[in-house]
């Protein structure tokens, strides 16, 4: 089976221009969508269904930087199994502890914890943004080098990002339990 990059007719790179990706997706859709084969024979219809689902799955995966990188890691034989959420990055131990404390207190009804939790949320948002920048840099680096070392670094950065964004989501949920 073709890769998602092949399905969209683009080079297997990590830095992708979203507009160019969408344009490729639209162009391929015009050619492959099952609507274009409504009057074709069964075999052609089945083929259109296969190819357009691959195209759609590909566009969905590649338009998001994280899932794009994970897909590329998988293509290159990296195991990207979920990192267990208990594995706290050592340099963040203290911040994570404080964040969890504040969340527990707020959940227990202690409104005084709201301030520290909002503070922690800001801190973690900044950390996610920082990790995104690192990832962008690594993307460009891999696009140039195509080295496995870069892929390994990307995997580590993605794990860190996943961990941080999970925490951030929990904090946001704790701050706005209604929505």
């Amino acid at each position, binding site marked *: 089976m073709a890769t998602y990059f092949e399905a969209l007719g683009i080079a297997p790179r990590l830095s992708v221009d979203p507009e160019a990706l969408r344009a490729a997706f*639209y162009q391929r859709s015009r050619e492959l969508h099952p*609507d274009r084969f409504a009057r074709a024979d069964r075999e052609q219809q089945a083929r259109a269904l296969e190819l357009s689902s691959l195209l*759609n*799955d590909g566009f*969905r995966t590649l338009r998001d930087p994280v899932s794009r990188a994970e897909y590329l890691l998988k293509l290159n034989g990296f195991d990207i199994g979920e990192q267990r959420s208990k594995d706290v990055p050592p340099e963040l131990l203290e911040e994570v502890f404080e964040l969890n404390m504040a969340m527990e207190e707020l959940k227990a009804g202690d409104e005084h914890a709201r301030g520290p939790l909002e503070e922690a949320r800001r801190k973690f948002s900044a950390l996610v943004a920082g990790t995104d920048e690192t990832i962008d840099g690594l993307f460009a680096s891999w696009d140039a080098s195509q080295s496995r070392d870069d892929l390994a670094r990307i995997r580590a950065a993605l794990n860190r990002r996943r961990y941080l964004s999970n925490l951030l989501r929990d904090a946001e949920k704790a701050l706005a339990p209604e929505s």
Partner: protein
Amino acid sequence: MSTFEIDFGETRRVIGIDLGTTNSLAAYMDLTAPRVVEGPAGDRLVPSIVSFPPEGEPVVGSAARERLVSHPAETVYSAKRFMGKGSDDVAAELPLLPFRLAPGSEALVRFDVSGRTITPPEVGALILRRLKENAEAELGAEVREAVITVPAYFNDAQRQATRDAGRIAGLDVLRLVNEPTAAALAYGLDKRKQGVVAVYDLGGGTFDISILKLHDGIFEVLATNGDTHLGGDDIDNLLMRVAMEDIQSEWGEDIAGNHEAMQLLRRGVIQAKERLSFLPETSIELNWQGRGYQREITRGLFNRLIGPVIDRTLAPCRQCMADAGVTPDRIDEVVLVGGSTRIPLVRDTVEAVFRAKPHTELNPDEVVALGAAVQAGILAGQVTDTLLLDVTPLSLGIETMGGVVSKLIHRNSTIPASATETFTTSVDGQSNVLIHVVQGEREMVRDCRSLARFDLKGIAGMPAGMARIEVRFLIDANGILNVTARDARTGLEQSVEVKPSYGLTDEQVEAMVSESIERAEEDFRERQVREARVEADRVQAAVEKARQSDAYFDLPEDERASVDRAVNELLVVYHGDDHLLIRAKIEQLDHTTRGLAENLMNSAVQVALKGTKIE
């Protein structure tokens, strides 16, 4: 252009059908624009109502609407709300309905009407058949293929039920299209080239919200949301309750048990609701068995009553914007669809949520069918610069340990969409693996909608955990799930047995299809007999008149006798059901009366000549 016109005559027509909760209609592409099919009386909307008299054929449409009051227990309306549902799903609204459910309705609602059991797809099929006939009459050609619209938020079972209805009606359903998307197609054909459009569709029974990105003829749905059990019916029920309480205190009588009174009141309530869209105040009226009830209602009170119903559309709108990744200021246009969007409060609400004045140029009752016709044109190759990229409204997942759902395809994924999972055995020598597939957004299986169980059968005996069965879940362009499996070791196709949780099995649909084909043949034969009798009546009347004339008595006696014999022979076969025999006897009579006709002609000529002389 000329080749296009030449091809046009040979093209098999595909019609677009809006199978609605309250009304249904069909449309088709007429050269470059979609056009609504008109019924024999010039009516464009066919009420989605079917009545089943104990004797004779089902009554469909406006005639059935009349029977809703005179024969409420025999008449099914709003059948769309029951598509793909089991009895538990509809328990709450049953008390308000005049028809009952038959036993065995757990996985598939079966209406018990006039001593027969009928399923929602069969009711839908009767409405579709009417629309098909109307279209054939207007186009002067047989129609076998259709695009049928469904609420965007319909789940797999509801979509399958709609497709089944099409099959039972003898239609090849080329595509199911989501109603809001169809509406966008109808609006967007030659309008805006780029932009973000929100479609707010509040119909008789369902609510949908979809947000689309338009780009040079591509209609890409970014996200959709909705509630398949929210619409004008809910507003009617609210007003019904108010009126019933009034009546109870005025008349000292609860009319809930009387279906005739209830249907009359429902009609009164709907009329009042419709008037309140353009009048500041009106009254709900009921005249029943010599008693009258009248209640003034202002738009202000109406708004307060229905506010909570309309507010239920807000959360789906906000979720849809969040899923589409847009804020209200990014939305360029808003389109209103469905009869309930005529209500001023609905328009105000939409304007407040999306901060844009909604479009209402196209008739909200017709816009979905018009869009379905555009999609039909796309599939038939008549429209080539437009393409719809729709999404699946609900996440698809499988049951894992402890009743937890593992999501495979997320909601708002562009369709066709697929996911592949590898399964194995947990016991030595295990030959089956059962996969439970569900739809919904919740974490636990019990909070989602069961879709089907797929049984992977005939797995070769091997130690536990050794088998590798790759299962591919594919949601097609209709939003319907297809599952295939293969043994990853051998690459051979693995057999999969589907046990749908709701709805008809393939075998049941097949049986209904062949029954409906038989019925169609029967109908056809009946029509031929009827036509032959009409012809026989005409000939007999003419002969009867001739027998009173001098021309008849001028005939030789044996010729008179053979005319009499031929008349009698026609009378003998007249009430039979063999149209060929009737036709043969008509011909024989025609033949034996040739001399009589000649005589008549001559005497007519003589009369005419005499006339000239006199004048």
